[in-house]
């Protein structure tokens, strides 16, 4: 192989390029360009009657010029759905804006087959502003539309999954609290739960009220750290462990001790706080034994007295090797009420301000001593403070002896 002189090669190339330029110029005069352009062209009257078409367009719609010019409108060549879109969007936009771009339509051929296209159109006006003609360029969009259809399907699937996740979160949350508070003879009890944010995620708060024997009940409320399905699994474990342990163990401190061990041996690194109360009925009221594991102390509201913290002592559950728990016992007489709540109450935040204990005590004072009114009053105060959208979920339980 011989290498040509670079100068000669350049000359030859430019000669060839020049010849190609002239040949293409000669071949593709404006008429040939119009007829064989790689897109469909047509011109219509302002009313849409077809005036001119190019060969590409006629090939695409498989019609002769005689079947189109002067006898058909552009909309005649569209599917019904595209025709409706044309009349309600395309035509008004064209009239108002003078042009439309990238509108997706479908052409229909005499045999019923369809061609997805993208359409640009411009309205030509006379000097006095009167509409004279509509120029339309049509691009074959078969592949593109197929891809878009896939994207749309994917979007629809994503939206459906999101709806499903929301429903699942709500359903799961409902398994973490009793469907309805049980009726306990001689005890008024009320409870409420409110999720954080818009409720799309399962929160870690739970509560439970269940009987262990005749006139022997357990009330518990707690908070597993974190949110979502992981946290919900631990919350379920905690709730059922408390139920199982309470059957054979009357002392909340011992139940919490065992729960602590269960959590430490569970593969999760999530910890938990809980308040646990065992209620046994006596003559005119209830005897309460109460244990706490790292949880904000419940409030004991004695008839005619200021609220005071109650509930026992103990650290976070599932963290320490040598955790020790201590019970508190007290009697609940007529008119006395206990209020349990999760930290979402105290840590409710507005800007840099926390809801805090003072607001809680104020809300309690205002709500009175009836459990339902108390739960409602505190929840409303927390929601109002955060303008209806909670940073953290909130659970509240109150019970008391009717006065």
């Amino acid at each position: 192989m011989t290498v040509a002189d670079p100068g000669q090669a350049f000359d030859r190339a430019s000669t060839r390029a020049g010849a190609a330029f002239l040949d293409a110029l000669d071949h593709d005069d404006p008429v040939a360009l119009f007829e064989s352009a790689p897109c469909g062209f047509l011109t219509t009257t302002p009313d849409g009657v077809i005036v001119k078409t190019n060969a590409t367009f006629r090939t695409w719609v498989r019609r002769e010029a005689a079947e189109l010019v002067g006898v058909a409108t552009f909309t005649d060549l569209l599917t019904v759905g595209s025709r409706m879109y044309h009349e309600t969007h395309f035509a008004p936009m064209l009239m108002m804006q003078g042009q439309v771009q990238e509108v997706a339509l479908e052409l229909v051929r005499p045999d019923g087959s369809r061609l997805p296209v993208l359409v640009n159109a411009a309205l030509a006006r006379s000097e006095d502003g009167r509409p004279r003609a509509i120029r339309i360029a049509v691009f074959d969009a078969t592949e593109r539309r197929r891809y878009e259809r896939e994207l749309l399907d994917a979007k629809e699937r994503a939206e459906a999954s999101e709806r499903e996740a929301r429903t699942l979160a709500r359903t799961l949350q409902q398994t973490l609290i009793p469907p309805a508070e049980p009726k306990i003879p001689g005890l008024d009890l009320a409870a409420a739960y409110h999720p954080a944010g818009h409720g799309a995620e399962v929160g870690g708060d739970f509560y439970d009220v269940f009987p262990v024997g005749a006139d022997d009940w357990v009330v518990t409320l707690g908070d597993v750290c974190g949110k979502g399905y992981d946290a919900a699994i631990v919350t379920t474990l905690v709730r059922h462990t408390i139920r199982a342990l309470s059957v054979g163990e009357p002392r909340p401190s011992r139940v919490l001790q065992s729960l602590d061990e269960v959590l430490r041996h569970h593969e999760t690194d999530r910890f938990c706080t809980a308040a646990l109360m065992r209620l046994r009925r006596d003559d005119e009221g209830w005897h309460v034994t109460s244990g706490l594991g790292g949880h904000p102390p419940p409030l004991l509201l004695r008839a005619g007295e200021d609220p005071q913290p109650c509930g026992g002592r103990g650290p976070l559950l599932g963290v320490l090797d040598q955790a020790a728990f201590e019970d508190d016992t007290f009697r609940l007489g007529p008119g006395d009420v206990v209020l349990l709540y999760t930290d979402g109450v105290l840590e409710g935040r507005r800007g840099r301000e926390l809801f805090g204990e003072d607001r809680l005590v104020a809300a309690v004072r205002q709500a009175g001593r009836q459990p339902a009114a108390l739960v409602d009053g505190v929840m409303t105060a927390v929601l109002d403070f955060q303008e209806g959208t909670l940073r953290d979920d909130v659970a509240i339980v109150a019970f008391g002896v009717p006065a």
Partner: protein
Amino acid sequence: MVFVHGFGCDQHMWRHVTPAFEADHRVVTFDLVGAGGADPEAWDAARYDSLGAYAEDILAVIHGLDLRDVVLVGHSVSAMTGVLAAVAEPDLFSALVLIGPSPRYLDDGAYRGGFSEADIAELLTSLDSNYLGWSTAMAPVIMGNGDRPALGQELTASFCRMDPDVARQFARVTFLTDARDALPAVSTPTLVLQCHQDVIAPVQVGQYVADAIPGARMVLLDATGHCPHLSAPADTIAAIREFLPSAASVPAAT
């Protein structure tokens, strides 16, 4: 005069027509909830699940502005919404002008609305194809180097654009409604403006409306398409003008 736009666009589509009435009428135009510049927060999928809510909105506009002897000009689906409003509170209205009305788009027994359910499904697909790739923030459409002979840029950004979910629901409500029962209850003088070729509301549908509303008149415009107020504004104005003196107690200019 209260002008109410239909499915697809917004109040700006009245711009070739309303100036002709401003000298002797108080002219009110507005965007339907979900369309044009309406507050997106006002949209409520549960509420706007039938034409009734749109009719209530028309009445709210009329009451809010304390309008009387209203000439209501409704296009397309809003012609029917106007009918519902006029049936609910006939005392507010002195005349109805229905442009391209259809009380029922679907064929139903002997009634020919012009469309089948499959056609409506196809329209929804068409909406989807055209909303795909549109930013939900309604980014201004890029218009290349072409000038905008008719509209300012800010209008271009919103004209004929709707949140895709809103558009789907509005399309469904529009095209699946059956408002035929309301027509005989209209007691307001009514003009039906009909184009001689309209794929959305064919002539026989306009005739059906004119026949069903007691005393209604129909004018067949020398125009094609579904939007004579855009394609033939002069004819549209003339037909409304000619009708108004004959309608009961047309309000004088204030």
